[in-house]
């Protein structure tokens, strides 16, 4: 009966939740609870308000459209103290843009930017650089030492506050060091833990051609900055492994940006630093196809459009475009079929990552030690990954033969959510079999 003693003690103290985790898994679990449920005594938002587990830990306009009006995301629409200079509800609902004051809170009326919500997948392989960690769209998203661990402190001050006075202890409380540790561990646990190794033996001739273009430094030139379709620069060119870099690629110079077409106030975003140098951080591409809209200002809706961006004047006249032109003798100039091929490659590797994540989640669901409640949470995420795989393939006209198989997997996952323990595990196993079959269709052996 000795194992009951801590339970009794916890009950008496009422503080089990704040007990320090004892293993890395405990730390991740504690971080997940904080990420999804801790409001830090602020306006009701949590990290998960914007980084939704079933929306790839990001947030899209389509997902926002499913939320009730009393969701904490929309706090600026309900709370008078946050009615001005905290969010732009129209741009949030229409384009999933969030208001950021990364250059400071001194002039809330004029000094702000509207940015998309980046996913938090694959962070363990996408934020290290020779100049320290790169977090957020411009690589300088965190206060303190600029680390991912410090990020939550800045996020609470920016997004969780009850008023725009932003007084710690009044409008919110700051995360404790132990909470920062747990939040960091959880975020680092999400998604890929290593980069993929290109080239992959892809069955689709279009995706395979796209991969070749992606890796060719005379045509696509993508692999130079997105080595192995990740967030790091090619070490054979840049000299450093795992180096996540900032570039000024000219996204701000794009004409007809959707948010600006509304007539709403959208100040220029100067990127990294104060004042900014125009640079933004390189995101990983493996997770790109199902996490649009693209770029820091959600200015391009489709993955094809995002690839085509590098053909245009905005990129080719930018500092990054000019450097590429200077080094290789030409800018990037892909024809329409080539744009689609590169996008097809990005779609296919995204689906492979969807399937990998789903397999990981369903593996835990099948573990008898996984509780029903936990299993349901993981099943929902696995089902979202399956749905993403379906949509990403369908949207690119790729692997039509895989679509009915993914639909079967979806039906099985839906059944698993409603089933008892034994049936749930069996449905999960069958869904996993379907997903493995899809993987075999995509990657030729």
């Amino acid at each position, binding site marked *: 009966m000795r194992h009951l003693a801590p339970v009794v003690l916890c009950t008496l103290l009422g503080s089990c939740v704040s007990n320090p985790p004892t293993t890395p898994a405990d730390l991740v679990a504690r971080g997940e609870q904080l990420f999804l449920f801790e409001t830090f005594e602020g306006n009701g938002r949590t990290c998960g308000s914007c980084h939704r587990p079933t929306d790839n830990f990001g947030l899209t306009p389509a997902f926002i459209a499913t939320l009730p009006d009393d969701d904490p995301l929309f706090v600026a629409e309900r709370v008078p103290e946050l009615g001005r200079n905290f969010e732009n509800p129209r741009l949030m609902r229409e384009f999933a843009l969030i208001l950021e004051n990364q250059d400071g809170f*001194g002039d809330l009326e004029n000094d702000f930017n509207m940015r998309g919500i980046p996913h938090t997948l694959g962070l363990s392989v996408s934020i290290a650089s020779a100049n320290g960690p790169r977090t957020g769209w411009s690589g300088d998203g965190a206060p303190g*030492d600029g680390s991912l661990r410090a990020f939550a402190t800045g996020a609470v001050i920016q997004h969780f506050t009850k008023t725009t006075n932003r007084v710690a202890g009044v409008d919110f409380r700051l995360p404790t060091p132990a909470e920062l540790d747990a939040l960091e561990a959880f975020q680092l646990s999400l998604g890929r833990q290593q980069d993929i190794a290109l080239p992959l033996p892809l069955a689709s001739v279009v995706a395979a051609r796209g991969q070749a273009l992606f890796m060719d*430094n005379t045509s696509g030139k993508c692999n130079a900055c997105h080595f192995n379709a990740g967030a790091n620069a090619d070490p054979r060119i840049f000299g450093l492994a795992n180096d996540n870099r900032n570039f000024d690629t000219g996204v701000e110079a794009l004409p007809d940006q959707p948010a600006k077409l509304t007539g709403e106030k959208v100040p220029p975003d100067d990127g990294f630093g*104060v004042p900014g140098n125009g640079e933004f951080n390189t995101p990983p591409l493996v997770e790109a196809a199902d996490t649009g809209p693209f770029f820091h200002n959600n200015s391009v809706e489709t993955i094809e459009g995002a690839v085509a961006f590098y053909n245009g004047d905005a990129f080719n006249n930018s500092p990054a475009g000019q450097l590429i032109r200077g080094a290789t003798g030409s800018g990037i100039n892909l024809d329409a079929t080539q744009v689609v091929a590169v996008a097809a490659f990005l779609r296919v590797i995204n689906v492979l990552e969807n399937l990998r994540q789903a397999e990981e989640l369903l593996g835990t669901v099948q573990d008898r030690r996984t509780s029903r409640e936990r299993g349901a949470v993981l099943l929902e995420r696995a089902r979202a990954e399956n749905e993403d795989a379906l949509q990403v393939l369908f949207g690119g006209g790729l692997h039509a033969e895989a679509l009915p198989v993914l639909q079967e997997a979806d039906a099985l996952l839906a059944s698993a959510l409603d089933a008892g323990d034994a049936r749930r595990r069996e449905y999960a196993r069958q869904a996993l079999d379907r997903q493995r079959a899809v993987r075999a269709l995509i990657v030729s052996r």
Partner: protein
Amino acid sequence: MKILPLTGLAFLLLLVAPPGGAQLMTERYVPIGESPGISGKESTMGEITAVDRAARTLTVAGDGGAREYRVTADTHVWLDRTRWRLSNTDGSYSDCEVGDYVEVMHSADDPAVAAWVKVRTRGAR
């Protein structure tokens, strides 16, 4: 494979690579002693024991002993009014007085230069 020409590009980019990635301006709203990864590790916290207006220096008696910092035009000075339940504000070197409790973060380039100073105000000024 035109990898070699791109090595020239890499060299250029390394030359223009910006330093560090911390979001400096949010720091103003982080109370003294709560800057993640900085407080208790990189910064000095304690009372100002001396101010030399001519040399634009201040001396802080921290846990590790007294340290003198030079305050330059690039140094951010913020007034921490958290305990007065007021929003923190921008300050200046002239706000730093002997006896004030401060946190000083050194510059990455020169540890004798203050990158930022947070001053705990004695009243709701």
